Structures are given as C-alpha cells and as structure tokens.
C-alpha cells in the first residue's frame, strides 16, 4: 500500500466538495453536468481506495458500474439539452423558467 486509505478518502472528499460547489454555483447546464462527472470521479476514487484497502475486488467492479451509469447519464442529459436548446436558445439554467409560476 503506497498511502493509507484515509488519504485517498480525504482526496475523494475534497474532489466531491469541488464538484458539489460547481454543480450548485455554475449557471451553464453543460458545466453543471461536468461538475457531476467530477463528483462521480471522486466516488470512483473512494471505491477503488476501499477495494485496495480491503483487498476486495468488488470496489473496482462497483466503480465500473458507476462509470456505466455516468455514460448513460451523459447521453440522456445532453440529449435533453439539445431538445431544450432547439426550443429556446441558450444553455443556462436561467433560460429555463417556463415552468416557474
């Protein structure tokens, strides 16, 4: 083991916090989705760290499934974004106020 598992978990916590900040603060929908990718990467990191620490392969397998779900999320999310921008140009959350009462 190169570094203790706590270090990897701490790195994962910092990356997740950065991604959370980006998701909540950015106004561009594409960059909000990119921040979600940063958060998913942080989770993958902690899964791989736990798998390494416990010498259990299930951490890596679970991280693979997280990557699959991320790919599906990107496909559907960006498809939605294309459909939205076809109706109304612009890619910021402030453009999507049609449902606002």
């Amino acid at each position: 083991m190169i570094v203790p598992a706590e270090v990897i978990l701490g790195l994962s916590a910092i990356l997740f916090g950065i991604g959370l900040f980006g998701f909540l603060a950015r106004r561009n929908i594409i960059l909000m989705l990119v921040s979600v990718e940063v958060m998913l990467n942080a989770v993958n990191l902690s899964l791989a760290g736990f798998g390494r620490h416990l010498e259990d392969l299930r951490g890596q397998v679970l991280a693979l499934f997280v990557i699959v779900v991320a790919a599906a999320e990107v496909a559907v999310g960006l498809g939605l974004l294309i459909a939205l921008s076809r109706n109304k140009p612009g890619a910021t959350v402030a453009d999507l106020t049609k449902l606002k009462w």
Partner: protein
Amino acid sequence: MALLTATFYYMAAASVASALLAVMAKNPVHSMLWVLALFLHVAGIFLLLGAEFLAAVQVIVYAGAILIFYLFILMLLDLPDVEAQPRFGRHWPLAAGAGLLFAGFAWLARAGTGLAPAGRRVATDGAPQSSLETIGIALFGPFALPFETASLLLLAAIIGAVVLARRRAA
C-alpha cells in the same frame, strides 16, 4: 516506495488543482480541458492503487468518449456570449458553503471509519492473479446480473438520447 508516494501526492495535488480550475474557468472549452487533466490524473491514481483495468476504462470511457461528447455538444450549441455572462449565480457563496461543508464532513467522517491498518489483512486468494482476469471472472460470475442490467441501461440510454434529441417532424 518513496518515489511512488511522491507520485501519488503529485497526482492528488494536480487532480485537486485541475478540478478547481475546471469548475472556475470562464471559457467552457478550457473547463473541458481541465476536466480532461483531472480524468487523466485520477487514472494515474487508479494505476497506483493497482486497478489497472479501471484506469484503462477511465481513460477510454471518460477521457475518450464522455468528454468528447461534451465537447461535441459544446460546439454544436455554439454559445457565442457565454463568456460575457456571469459564470456563477448570485447564490454562489451558498454553493461554496455547501461544498466546503460536505467536504469537511466527509473529511471528518473518514477518521471514524475504523479502517483496519493496511497490511494486516492476508490475501486469501492463493496465487496472485492479474487484476484484469479476476475482474473478468467476477463480472461474468457473481456480478452477471448487474452486468446484464448495465447493458440494458446503456441500451435504454441510447434509445432515450435518440428520442430526446430527434428533430420533431412538424
């Protein structure tokens, strides 16, 4: 071993820095390039953790497919005035507080996980196998049902994306 530890800390510092720059960059294309740097550094950390297959999948799927898809959409939508608009909403201090709070809680919780010190566990697998081989056996053995469900999920996502992005015939 000291060299590997130093490499890990370089990867960790570089990934935190590129994640911050990706979130803060004004130009979305710069943001994508910083996310690419983040993905590659995380793949390096996976390599250091002995997860070679995960590192390869990270480079191929994340850096190769997902990021290119984002860049395609970014170019397709063609947002000319995106740099003139403010990057963050007015509520960004709240968002920063939420991010810091979560990171702080996770940082504190990590101390209480009660992880056994590494190295005390003895591998019971007998002969060491290559990581790829054991992952393949696990994916088609005990994880066969989740594996097939994942393929179904990807199929649903493909069809969903096509249906959503299709131009409606007026």
